[in-house]
């Protein structure tokens, strides 16, 4: 059974989500999408399906926040699956104040939803003019940026270049790994937001061929391209301590990783701190393996598999990225360092 890709669209009210949806629905792309929105608005509807729904957040009996799902989405996707013909995609718009966690988790947690669909990417639309005003009001704006695979930094025409740079820097503090597009009126090529395969382990390496090299650009005053320190995150600690408590941590190692030690460590970390770890992603050089080990997770749910072969002459190294809240960089760094083969 082919799984329909699902794009989750988040962002504050007024950031430009509806404009983006209108683009998707009216652009002449020849594909058929279903759009799940909170209310019926002024949407152009061609051969696409628009479903209005009230968000229903359901916790599980075990009370685990990482198992919380959107009950209404389970129903909507069950209904869409019954329709004849195949959908090219489903786009789920969340309310401006929504925590993206339960939406994303629904696609891992519910067996029927998991069978019929796959989460493609979380796209967050940010209003360049208002982001700095909202970002410290509540956690939502930061969470939406932290969860994102793709950020549309929208309304760039309404701010000065200096202000735009400040907004972008703040976004990069929260999430240095998302693809960021500067847009006006949400104008972006649909290929940049749909069909991203951001949660597909097989595609992580293809989409992010430079994943192992990137990640330090946001540290404007450091250059660690050739750093030999296998755990060269000392600077991250100081960098993140004085920031907001939603942020990212990257860990690298050029020593091969012991698979068993790593599995034990990462499952302990996700079990104990999964509530605060929004997204995790990694490519590992496992000792004795000819292939790269790739993994990604949302809160406590983690998915790992063997990816491509290490190429001849490629420098083998490992990199892990955590985006979340109240991350203890020092503890994570030490734990990961201890996974290296002795």
């Amino acid at each position: 059974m082919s799984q329909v890709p699902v794009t989750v669209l988040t962002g504050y009210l007024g950031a430009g989500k509806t404009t983006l949806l209108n683009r998707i629905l009216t652009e002449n792309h020849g594909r058929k999408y279903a759009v799940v929105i909170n209310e019926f608005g002024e949407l152009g509807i061609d051969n696409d399906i628009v479903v209005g729904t009230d968000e229903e957040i359901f916790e599980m009996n075990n009370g685990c926040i990482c198992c919380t799902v959107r009950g209404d989405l389970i129903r909507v996707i069950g209904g869409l699956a019954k329709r004849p013909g195949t959908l090219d995609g489903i786009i789920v718009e969340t309310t401006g104040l929504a925590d993206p966690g339960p939406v994303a988790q629904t696609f891992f947690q519910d067996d029927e939803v998991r069978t019929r669909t796959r989460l493609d990417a979380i796209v967050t639309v940010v209003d360049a003019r208002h982001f700095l005003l909202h970002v410290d009001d509540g956690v939502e704006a930061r969470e939406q940026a932290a969860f994102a695979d793709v950020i549309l930094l929208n309304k760039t025409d309404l701010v000065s270049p200096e202000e735009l740079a400040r907004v972008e820097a703040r976004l990069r503090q929260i999430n240095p790994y998302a693809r960021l597009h500067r847009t006006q009126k949400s104008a972006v090529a649909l290929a940049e937001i749909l069909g991203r395969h951001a949660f597909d382990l097989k595609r992580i390496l293809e989409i992010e061929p430079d994943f192992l090299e990137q990640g330090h650009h946001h540290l404007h005053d450091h250059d660690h391209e050739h750093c030999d320190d296998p755990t060269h995150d000392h600077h991250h600690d100081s960098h993140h301590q004085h920031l907001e408590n939603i942020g990212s941590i990257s860990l690298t190692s050029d020593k091969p990783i012991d698979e068993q030690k790593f599995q034990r460590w990462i499952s302990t970390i996700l079990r104990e701190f999964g509530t605060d770890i929004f997204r995790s992603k990694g490519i590992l050089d496992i000792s004795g393996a000819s292939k790269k080990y790739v993994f990604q997770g949302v809160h406590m749910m983690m998915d790992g598999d063997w990816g491509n072969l290490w190429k001849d002459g490629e420098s083998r190294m490992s990199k892990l990225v955590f985006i979340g809240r109240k991350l203890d960089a020092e503890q994570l760094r030490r734990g990961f360092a201890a996974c290296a083969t002795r």
Partner: protein
Amino acid sequence: MSEPGFAERLPPSRRVETGAWVSGLTYDRTGRTLGVACGDGRVWCIDTTNDSPPSPPEPAHRGVSLSIIANPSGDSFISGGDDGRLLRHGDAARELESFKGRWFERLAGHTKTATLAAVAGKEIVVYGASGRRVLGPHPSTVADIDFSPDGSRLVAAHYGGVTIHVLKPADAAPRSLEWKGSHVAVRYSPDARFIATGTQDNALHVWRLATGKDMQMSGYPVKVKQLAWSHDARFLFGTATSLFTGWPFAGKGPEGKPPIQFGDEGAGIMTAIAAHAADSFIAAGFDTGEVQVGDSKTRRSAVIKLAGDGQVSALAWSPGGWSLAVGTDQGVVELIDLRR
């Protein structure tokens, strides 16, 4: 399934291809017509006394026909759709309700009291002898409903537990039974002693109505979307397993007792289940398309439809219990004659 001659030993059946996901099917009260609700909005009324292939009807609902039941107060059927319409079929379909922005995925009928109940979001619309009533709103969208065997009560499953509405007298307060989590299916036991639910947590939850005490059966690989009590209320079965798995409710109940299990290990995961109304038979459909009929008395089962045609999405016994209708997510309907 590779056993030679196996197919020849299957009971005779008749096949109808609707071309769209079968979201529900049911016989009318005479057993002469089979009503089938499909993903393309069509509602088929198939004459079971005539083998000629039926011609496709015009779609009754815009979008998906989500549900169908036999009309509890007459002939033909009631269907619900994600167009927010509730229809009474007959010579011409008549609209009973139209709720913009809602959908009718769960219906229930009680023939003796001629009462119809239909879920519309957080509310339930009830048509009975005393007219139309709206129950709720409930704490969340109602996921499933069921009448008590005598029709005096209606139970609704939702987030956080179930609510039992007293239909007669109409002013009696509803009773809430709480259990944290989302409840997706609900069934009264035929002796009205228990209410069972299937939950989002891949478990069954059961309340003993006399005391309000509850119990939990967990460990299912996926959530239990359909439940079936054996006609004598001795066993509670649910989908989501590869074998028939029945919890014993005779005597003191299932606490501390293992469930009975029987069936064919290789059939797949059970996706639909329906109990015979007057005998110890349970029909089960699997994600492979296979259908078996099990007997809770002898704890044996027989294959009555081979794998194929997608996963079984709906099952219905004929009123006399001699025929079983099977629907699949690929739009195949089979009427299986079990008289032999």
